[in-house]
């Protein structure tokens, strides 16, 4: 009888130990892998340049589609630039600024980089 109780207690202890190990492992995986995956996938958060394309566009009563067609890109790209999800390349920034008849600094806000 004593042996059975002892064996049961041992089993319970072993199960608890395994559970604890699994929990620790999961925590370690979550703490290590999620940031790695995040850093692998997330787009560079360093450069999130604000723009006033939306205001300029609205002042000229232009749709995103029309602006995209003029500067040789897609509507989705214009949306992403306006929202700040995507930073335009230098040629595209130049094209947009040139289209509005302004300089790049007047269209894109580089104050965060300066700071």
């Amino acid at each position, binding site marked *: 009888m004593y042996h059975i109780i002892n064996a049961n207690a041992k089993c319970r202890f072993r199960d608890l130990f395994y559970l604890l190990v699994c929990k620790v492992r999961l925590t370690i995986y979550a703490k290590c892998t999620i940031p790695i995956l995040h850093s692998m996938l997330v787009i560079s958060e360093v450069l999130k340049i604000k723009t006033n394309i939306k205001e300029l566009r609205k002042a000229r009563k232009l749709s995103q589609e029309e602006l995209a*067609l003029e500067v*040789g*890109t*897609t509507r989705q*790209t214009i949306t*992403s630039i306006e929202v700040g*999800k995507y930073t*335009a390349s230098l040629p595209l920034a130049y094209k947009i600024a040139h289209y509005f008849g302004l300089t790049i600094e007047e269209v894109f806000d580089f104050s965060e980089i300066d700071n």
Partner: protein
Amino acid sequence: MDAYRKQIKIRICLLSILDFIFVGLLIYDQFGADPLRKGSTVFSFLCGLAAAGTLLISAKIIQYRKILHDEAKLRLNYNKENDERTKEIRRRSGMPMVLIFSVLMILAGVIAGYFNETIFITLLAAALCQMLISAIVKVYYLKNM
């Protein structure tokens, strides 16, 4: 835009050649193949691939032909293909190399499959898996970039 128009015409020609090859394989499957070959997994897979490929390629050819006759659509398509964000997303999802490796793996699997079916299934699964991962990454960037 003329260079792009020429490029689309070349694409139509290449796709038509591929389409003819697939149709030829399907005709061979229907009328020429012996029952023993028809029963093999690899040949069945090839026929399925040819049938699906024929449909997809035909749809693409029709789309290209429509684009060729419409200047606005041609420009839109040109912008879409040369859009820097789209290119960046494709690059980040490893697109040209993943596609090339997947096609090579499937080809190797088909060749190896005539000797050992397990290799064929393994290579096919690996190719599909890497294409799936690439697609997931692409969808992620399309939403977040």
